[in-house]
């Protein structure tokens, strides 16, 4: 709770938090405002914004409601961002934790493995993975997760290496606690702050990645996402600026909000750890 308090005392982070909260609300409840699908062709194509009261942001190349698309897109952008980040954490944390805690040949082996993923250009790898498993929300999420876990592993490894010789960890070892227990209960909770910060930034990056993939035509055809909307609108960017403009703003705003919250978290979480000496 105190983290939330600290966050909201930081004006910029508070702005990010509010935007993010609104986006989450839209993601959860928004689609209920548009009960029919966002694919429905509701009016004539290329209707500019504000021309029709019920279609605030106008219509797209097929006469579909842009606002409805944005609302549905919020859900999918956030979901893809969140889930891919979670998968990346699920891969990266155990890997980094084992490498950092055990060290030695385990560390060497796991880090060589990580290095492979870091050496292959990640965006190219994401493209290949999506193309191979055929574009769908699952393959996109998976691809994003597969290219974003190495930094997590490296971060967690670094934290574990720093913490494994902390005296409270040594004390736990002397206490006869199992490695499993030490990793999960002693060290991991103390690495959460940087992980949370990194995760919030990763969600942002994942949203950007998803939109880039969709832009290249590698989006899930079943799902109305922001990246898809820009990708679909780029060919008509001069006839209908609003088609790529609004989703672009939506992405930028979301990513911005996540970054602000991430930075706010960073500021709120880290001084507490280092500042505890003064108290």
């Amino acid at each position, binding site marked *: 709770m105190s983290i939330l308090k600290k966050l909201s005392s930081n004006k910029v982070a508070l702005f990010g938090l509010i935007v993010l909260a609104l986006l989450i609300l839209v993601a959860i409840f928004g689609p209920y405002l548009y009960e029919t699908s966002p*694919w*429905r062709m509701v009016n004539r194509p290329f209707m500019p914004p504000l021309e029709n009261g019920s279609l605030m942001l106008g219509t797209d190349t*097929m006469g579909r409601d842009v606002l409805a698309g944005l609302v549905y897109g919020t859900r999918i952008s956030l979901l893809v961002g969140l889930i891919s980040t979670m998968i990346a954490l699920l891969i990266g944390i155990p890997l980094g934790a084992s490498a950092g805690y055990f060290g030695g040949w385990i560390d060497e082996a796991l880090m060589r493995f990580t290095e492979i993923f870091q050496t292959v250009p990640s965006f190219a790898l994401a493209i290949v993975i999506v193309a191979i498993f*055929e574009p769908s929300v699952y393959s996109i999420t998976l691809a994003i997760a597969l290219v974003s876990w190495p930094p997590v592993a490296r971060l967690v490894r670094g934290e574990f290496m720093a913490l494994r010789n902390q005296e409270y960890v040594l004390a736990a070892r002397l206490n006869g606690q199992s490695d499993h227990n030490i990793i999960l209960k002693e060290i991991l909770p103390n690495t959460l702050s940087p992980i949370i910060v990194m995760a919030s930034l990763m969600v942002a990056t994942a949203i950007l990645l998803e939109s880039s993939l969709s832009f290249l035509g590698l989006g899930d055809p079943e799902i109305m996402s922001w990246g898809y909307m820009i990708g*679909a609108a780029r*060919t008509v960017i001069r006839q209908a600026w609003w088609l790529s403009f609004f989703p672009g703003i939506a992405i930028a705003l979301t990513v911005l909000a996540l970054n602000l919250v991430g930075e706010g978290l960073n500021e709120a979480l880290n001084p507490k750890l280092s500042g505890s000496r003064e108290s």
Partner: protein
Amino acid sequence: MKKRLIQAVLAAAIPLASINVQAADPVYGGTMDVVVQPEPPSLMIGLYSNAPTQQVAGNIYEGLLRYDKDLNPQPLLATSWDTSEDGKTWTFHLKHGVTWHDGKPFTSADVVFSVDKFLRQTNARLRQSLQYVDSITAPDDYTVVFQLKQPFGPFIGLFETGTMPMIPKHIYEGTDYKTNPANHHPIGTGPFKFAEWKKGSYIHAVKNENYHVKGLPYLDDIYWHVIPDAASRSVAYETGKIDVLPGGSVENFDIPRLTALDNSCSTSDGWEYFSPHAWLWINNRNYPMSDKRFRQAIMYAMDRDFAKNALWNGYGKVAKGPVGSKTNFFNKDLPDYEYNPKKAKALLKEMGYDGTPVRLLPMPYGETWQRWAEAIRQNLAEVGIKTDMVSSDVAGWNQKISDWDFDLSFTYLYQYGDPALGVSRTYVSSNIAKGSPWNNAEGYSDPEVDKLFAEAATAYPDSKRQELYNEVQAKLVEDVPVAWLLELEFPTIYNCNVHNLIDSAIGVNDAFGTAWIEK
């Protein structure tokens, strides 16, 4: 048929350049900048007959004939031709004094080699037609005789550059065609000579000073530019970098804007030979598509006029049935499947459709096709058919159709002017085989249809063929083996300073020999 031939022979006397009447006098010189999309895999047109290869190499290589916009054969490397009464012996008289780009003379030996040896081995589509040909002989250097096993209606339609290009025998004979180094430096008889190919950037061709048609070509150079992004291609045209945008090289949504620019002209001519026909493959093997009423319901559910207007800017024509209206032997009296969701729902109800979702495979050929799939999905959703859209790239799409791993899928195919060449392949049961996305992939099988198509291909004369084709078209429209969408038109957009651009049924594929640029 006979009468048409004589006309053609007469036409041969008229110089090629005067076919199109132009207001201004042609001028010599200038460089033409054209877009080619995607970058061709090779310019060796005998090995690769895909669209970008044809578009470039069609100006380097030549066939024996050209076709005008009504699909009438015109002389090119052959000055005249005639046929026996029974339609089984065809004799072609070659033009004298034609040379290859390397200076060697072009003779009947080249023709026999090209068709009988080279293309029979390399060109799958021509191979199908060549099964009707018994022998190809060259009585002298300038005469070639094709002896058919039985009359083959579309035979005279096979001689354009893309289908039956002339390959230099002195370069390819006795070599491995696919690895012959000349593939990288194509040698033809056409109005332009290959100069340079900067991979990923452009292909450069220069004027053939020794071209066999006196006075042609007008242009000095042609550059085909490779610009992978559609929006960039539009900008390139807009900023004047590009003179000609061949059909299909920009997204349809950009066409109205580009044609409305100052000094911008467009034409939808030049596709008559191909007459691209778009339809939805319907996998007839599986429920619910196996039910004729379901397939008819799809026809009624689709708002094809909306698609034509919203996606194709009004270009094209709603397809009535399997044969395009510009293709020979089109049946004008077919019933319409109008946009009628109610009727579609009624049909679905009648068959007791249980709501099983169907998989829809869009065509991975750009924005328009993707949007079209979205529109059709919405159309189908509104009559109660749930679709799952499956996305894939070109390779995956081909694979899925070849393996029959789809329920509905977009496609479009060329008709090549004659149902026997471009239509029957989709419907005859002998063409049901895994491994190709261009045969009878929907798995429709009807002995009567098989019989009618077989008879129509070899019937003689044309009136008899028309009768048989009418019958088979009516039968297919009732059965709906596939859901026909549009007869596509791909407008060519070009700078109005370019004159005399499209003057054949294959359009830009052999356009530049006669084109000129106003200064």
